[in-house]
């Protein structure tokens, strides 16, 4: 904040100071003018050297301050050579008219009383002189602008030296009365002329004009040259002008003449320079056009991001660069090739020509623009326009061929070296911008995907229970680690009644947002079914029926559903294609794997017929492990699986610990194992441990140590 305020204040200060400086210049000019006005009109000064000198000094100072003021006004705008030339011409003409027609005007107004003793005459003389002063000041400053046009900064000294000598020359005219000192004035005069000649010698801005402007300049310079000569003659004779102006200030008349000489020299040089430039004007124009379109193109690279807009612009520009009649771009499409960004040619015609050229370059790898004559093209008659030849240029980036730019010229036109070079240059730029646009699209797509996955993870987080249910008989722990690309894991607990609790674990096939949506559906299905149906088998059958309308044919869901009965001390379980439920009992593990198809694999009777439901009695410290394949398929850097065996071994080693400790040790091992690789799938691990009942149960249970399982253990 502080910094910004400070900079704003500095900028304001700067503007303010500039204005003050400018005002001082204007004010000093005005003050000097008033003094001059008083001297020239009210006091007729004695004709002595001192008074003359003072008068001349005031005039010169006034002119200098006017020039400084005008200089500020002019440098605010960026100059244009032609308009400066025209400017000089107009001012020159103004001077011409003032010189030649003011005498008759004054005579008309004042009649015979045109004499310096007449007040009105003096007033008119003053105004006349001031008009001339302003005109010559403008001319001088326009010359200055012209001089600086298209030049480096170092050359300021030449012009400033010349200006200094002008001033010295002006001052020295005061010495006119002393004949013996005239050599001083002459010296300054000669040096000034010399400097004028030097400064007029090289007019570099002509080169940058278009052919039309050059011709315009040529004609203008002739007219202005004549005006300058006329004005020079007018100012050196004895006529009305010289009477008034020399009377006003002899120094200024000398300056006027000097400026006219400058004009004559400058426009003389300008005329000849322009004349010599005209033959090469066309080539220069072309180069100029090329450069400006190149500049335009490099701008495009940063501006046009949309692929379609970009290709259209590329063909448009290649038309103007090569002077071709039609252009289009070939890109590799899904099947063969696509013709896009077609300009000035029908789609079918472009396609026909494309086929022809691609056939021609099939066996040769073209590196730059190639031209093909259409003389032998048999389908030429089918094409609406009569084309004589086509050019084709590869669009490459990072050594990959991205497509081709094709241009076509009508009969009577051909491609010359310049055209080919122009197309080549354009295609270099075009390739870069196409690549940029492609990369941008890719990164947008990537960002979109990441946002989508973010959303999927949010959905998943809301679907999975925030905390484990509290239960008197079950010690429950759960760990869920989502993969970056949401794997579709889901688990849940349902407290059916005081004495019954159900759980479900499921894994939706596929990944990302679609998997997350199916998960949400699954949650809804099991949540509602668990309220009305107890049998895990019936619930899975019902769920399968409902999923028929939800899953498409390549999606399916593996699931396992179980129901704990705390009073009967049993677990009922059914499995629909899910990983087996592991039971840790007496330092052994058992895979509980009743048969059952995954949900969504079959909607007919087969699902019902093959689905098996098991019921098992619960023993104290029975530990049930629910998991998804993310656990056993966690991968290390060598892409090896963590493995079912490894997993079971860790479980057994920790079987006597609390459920949360068991799951933590498994997860610890998994993260150690896969520390050098990313996680590809969700990891879900739920452990349910049948706790000791508060009141001591009979020893009966302990004796019955063999699990009665109706399972197929492989």
């Amino acid at each position, binding site marked *: 904040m502080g910094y910004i305020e400070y900079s704003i204040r500095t900028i304001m200060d700067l503007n303010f100071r500039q204005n003050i400086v400018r005002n001082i210049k204007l004010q000093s000019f005005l003050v000097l003018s008033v003094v001059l006005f008083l001297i020239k009109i009210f006091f007729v000064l004695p004709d002595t050297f001192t008074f003359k000198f003072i008068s001349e000094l005031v005039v010169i100072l006034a002119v200098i301050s006017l020039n400084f003021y005008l200089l500020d006004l002019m440098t605010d705008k960026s100059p244009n050579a032609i308009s400066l030339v025209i400017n000089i011409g107009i001012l020159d003409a103004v001077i011409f008219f003032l010189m030649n027609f003011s005498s008759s005007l004054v005579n008309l107004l004042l009649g015979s009383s045109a004499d310096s003793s007449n007040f009105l005459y003096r007033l008119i003389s003053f105004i006349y002189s001031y008009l001339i002063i302003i005109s010559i000041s403008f001319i001088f400053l326009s010359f200055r602008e012209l001089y600086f046009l298209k030049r480096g900064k170092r050359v300021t000294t030449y012009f400033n030296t010349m200006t200094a000598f002008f001033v010295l020359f002006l001052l020295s005219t005061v010495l006119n009365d002393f004949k013996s000192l005239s050599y001083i004035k002459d010296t300054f005069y000669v040096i000034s002329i010399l400097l004028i000649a030097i400064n007029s010698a090289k007019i570099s801005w002509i080169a940058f004009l278009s052919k039309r402007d050059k011709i315009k300049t040529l004609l203008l310079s002739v007219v202005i040259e004549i005006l300058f000569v006329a004005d020079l003659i007018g100012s050196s004779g004895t006529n009305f002008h010289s009477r008034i102006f020399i009377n006003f200030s002899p120094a200024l008349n000398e300056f006027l003449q000097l400026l006219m000489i400058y004009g004559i020299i400058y426009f003389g040089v300008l005329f000849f320079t322009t004349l010599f430039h005209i033959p090469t004007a066309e080539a220069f124009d072309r180069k100029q056009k090329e450069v400006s379109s190149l500049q335009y193109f490099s701008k495009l690279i940063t501006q046009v991001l949309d692929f379609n807009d970009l290709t259209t612009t590329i063909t448009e520009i290649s038309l103007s660069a090569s002077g071709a009649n039609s252009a289009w771009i070939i890109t590799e499409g899904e099947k063969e090739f696509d013709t896009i960004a077609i300009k000035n040619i029908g789609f079918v015609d472009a396609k026909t020509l494309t086929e022809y050229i691609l056939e021609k370059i099939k066996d040769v790898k073209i590196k730059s623009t190639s031209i093909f004559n259409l003389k032998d093209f048999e389908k030429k008659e089918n094409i609406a326009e009569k084309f004589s030849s086509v050019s084709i240029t590869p669009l490459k980036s990072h050594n990959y061929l991205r497509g081709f730019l094709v241009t076509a010229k009508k009969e009577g036109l051909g491609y010359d070296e310049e055209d080919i070079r122009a197309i080549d240059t354009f295609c270099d730029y075009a390739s870069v911008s196409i690549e940029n646009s492609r990369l941008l699209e890719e990164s947008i797509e990537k960002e979109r995907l990441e946002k989508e996955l973010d959303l999927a993870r949010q959905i998943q987080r809301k679907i999975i229970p925030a905390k484990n249910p509290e239960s008197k008989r079950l010690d429950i722990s759960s760990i869920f680690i989502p993969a970056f690309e949401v794997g579709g894991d889901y688990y849940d607990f349902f407290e059916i009644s005081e004495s019954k609790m159900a759980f479900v674990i499921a894994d939706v096939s596929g990944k990302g947002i679609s998997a997350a949506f199916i998960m949400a559906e699954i949650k809804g299905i099991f949540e509602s079914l668990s309220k009305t149906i107890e049998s895990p088998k019936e619930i899975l059958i019902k769920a399968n029926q409902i999923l028929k309308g939800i899953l498409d044919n*390549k999606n399916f869901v593996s699931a396992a559903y179980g129901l704990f009965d705390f009073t009967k001390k049993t677990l009922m379980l059914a499995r629909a294609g899910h990983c*087996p439920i592991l039971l840790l009992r007496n330092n052994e593990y058992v895979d509980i794997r009743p048969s059952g198809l995954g949900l969504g694999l079959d909607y007919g009777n087969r699902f019902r017929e093959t689905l098996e439901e098991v019921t098992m009695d619960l023993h104290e410290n029975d530990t049930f492990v629910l998991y998804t394949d993310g656990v056993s398929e966690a991968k290390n850097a060598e892409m090896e699986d963590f493995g079912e065996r490894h997993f079971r071994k860790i479980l057994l080693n920790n079987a006597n610990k609390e459920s949360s400790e068991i799951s933590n040790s498994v997860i610890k091992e998994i993260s150690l194992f896969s520390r050098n690789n990313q996680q590809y799938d969700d990891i879900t691990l739920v452990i349910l441990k049948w706790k000791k009942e508060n009141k001591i149960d009979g020893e009966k249970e302990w004796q019955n140590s063999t699990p009665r399982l109706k399972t197929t253990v492989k």
Partner: protein
Amino acid sequence: MAEFNTSVKDHGEISTVYLEGYLDAHTAPNLEETFSKLINNGKYKIVANFKDLAYISSAGLGVFMAFIEKVRENDGDIKLSAMNDKVYNIFDLLGFPLLYEIFKTEDEAIKKFDETK
């Protein structure tokens, strides 16, 4: 990450699709395309050879589900063969052996097609 490739060999009207590498959610579209091409060309008798398949994810299994209906409607089938134990286990867990015929070798699968002709 991992690579996945398919190649197809024709034995008369039976086509064998050789699967190689890792078949997961990212590479499944590759197999989908292979099956689509076969079916578009009227090849409905397909044997999938899993000999060089290292891994299959649920999305990979989904590809087989996606085409089986269309193939069977046209008196064809997709028979699976030459799976390693790990891959077989994944199919087995989901109950695929109830839905698909799975053979030890490609030849057995082809023979089965020939028998039922």
